[in-house]
């Protein structure tokens, strides 16, 4: 107990430590790097760029970091390797809708919250239901949302979601009044750490509210 604890010590709160915590030379041989920069050097640049970027970086941007031209498959292998190198750390490299980025693992939040006690507010049910309808039924008009929720949708709700960058207007429906059509944004997927809408939680099958046979008239 008093001795320094070996990395093999497992701890439920923390990711299990693993040996591969470093940025390794790659297993793929990119012999394109002619002296200027080797694969390991390029991975260090990739890592620095991803750690410093405030936005997720798409492959097209990441390729600019390399002195030689890489194809997407090669870049992807290196990024997957980099993600591997970070396994067992409190921070991980993840792929989201608009690219790759580092984030602290959610398990770290209980510690990080100690430094930053004020959290963003939780959204009301009305806001979340509106968001769900837009995410799952997009593109939808305000009228569509009201039809499903059975109540008026305040402009404030839509403004809140637009201000957060989670929804935007992608056009108008060609009916009288030309209502605006709302859709979810890449930002929403990024903020939920998702790559595409297909990764949203699947919709639940709703059990019937009444049996057809019982529909007898009394």
């Amino acid at each position, binding site marked *: 107990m008093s001795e320094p604890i070996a990395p093999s010590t497992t701890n439920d709160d923390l990711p299990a430590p693993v040996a591969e915590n470093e940025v390794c030379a790659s297993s793929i041989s990119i012999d394109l790097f002619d002296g200027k920069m080797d694969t390991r050097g390029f991975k260090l640049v990739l890592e*620095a760029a*991803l*750690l*410093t*970027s*405030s936005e997720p970086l798409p492959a097209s941007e990441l390729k600019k970091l390399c002195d030689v031209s890489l194809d997407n498959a090669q870049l992807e292998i290196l990024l997957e390797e980099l993600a591997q190198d970070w396994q067992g750390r409190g*921070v991980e490299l993840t792929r989201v809708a608009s690219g790759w*980025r*580092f*984030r*602290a*693992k*959610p398990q*770290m*939040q209980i510690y*990080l919250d100690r430094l930053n006690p004020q*959290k*963003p507010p*939780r*959204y009301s*049910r*009305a806001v*979340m*239901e509106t*968001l*769900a*309808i837009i*995410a*799952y039924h997009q593109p939808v008009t305000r009228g569509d949302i009201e*039809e*499903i*929720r*059975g*109540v*008026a949708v305040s402009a404030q709700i839509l403004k809140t979601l637009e201000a957060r960058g989670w929804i935007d207007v992608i056009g108008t429906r060609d009916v009288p009044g030309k209502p605006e059509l709302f859709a979810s944004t890449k930002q929403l997927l*990024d*903020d*939920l*750490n998702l790559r595409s809408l297909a990764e*949203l*939680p699947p*919709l*639940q099958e*709703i059990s*019937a*509210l*009444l049996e*057809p046979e*019982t*529909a007898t*008239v*009394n």
Partner: protein
Amino acid sequence: MSDNQLQLIPYARIHGEPVLELPLDLYIPPDALELVLENFQGPLDLLLYLIRKHNLDVLDIPMAELTRQYMGYIELMESNRMELAAEYLLMAAVLIEIKSRMLLPKVTKVSEDGIEDPRAELMRRLMEYEQMKLAAQALNEMPQAERDFEIVQVLIENTVQERLPQVSVDDLKQAWLGLLTRAKLNKHHTIRREQLSVREQMTHVLRCLKTGEYVAFENLFDLDDGLPKLVVTFIAVLELAKEFLVEIQQTETFGSIYVRTNRAINDE
């Protein structure tokens, strides 16, 4: 029923029994009916709640009682929440319509989908709403950036290599050209051709005097500069004196001449 309870409007009736108390998760003091309703996301939500939690059969709701309940809600809400009241009113109307259509003798209208159940449309809407309500809960449970996890952002110190605008002689020329154009347009100010070298030496001399101390006149000259420059420097000193920028002193005839800036004099 106690007197206190009599003041309550039942939320619904299940098999004739009024539902007066809401389950614990929704309990609100009896005088705060409006707040109870605000806890629901509208009539669909309330109906869904009653159906799911109390196995309420839409058909078993006594129509007279239902109507009375909804009118009660509306009276309460009319004052401040007309929009919401309208929605509950509409829902009451839908329920009454369904009930009345079901009371009518069966006409067995066969549509393409089979026998038309007057409740089908309401059920479809309720199920669609319930699905979205659950989806919203699931979305809310997903870890959200900033709320449930932090984004990594390491500083890049851009000051390491701050880019400064590059200026060329040509840029300066262009700037003057701009000034000249304007000067020509409004002839209020004429720009004189300056004796640049004199101006330059004036600056040089002022720099030498920057400390505010007296400087020996001869120290303003560098004999290695050659005659033209020495002359220009001399003119510069005279020019500075003319513009009251420097003070030249000689305490005795043929004595040493000292120069200092006027600022030093003024500071005394």
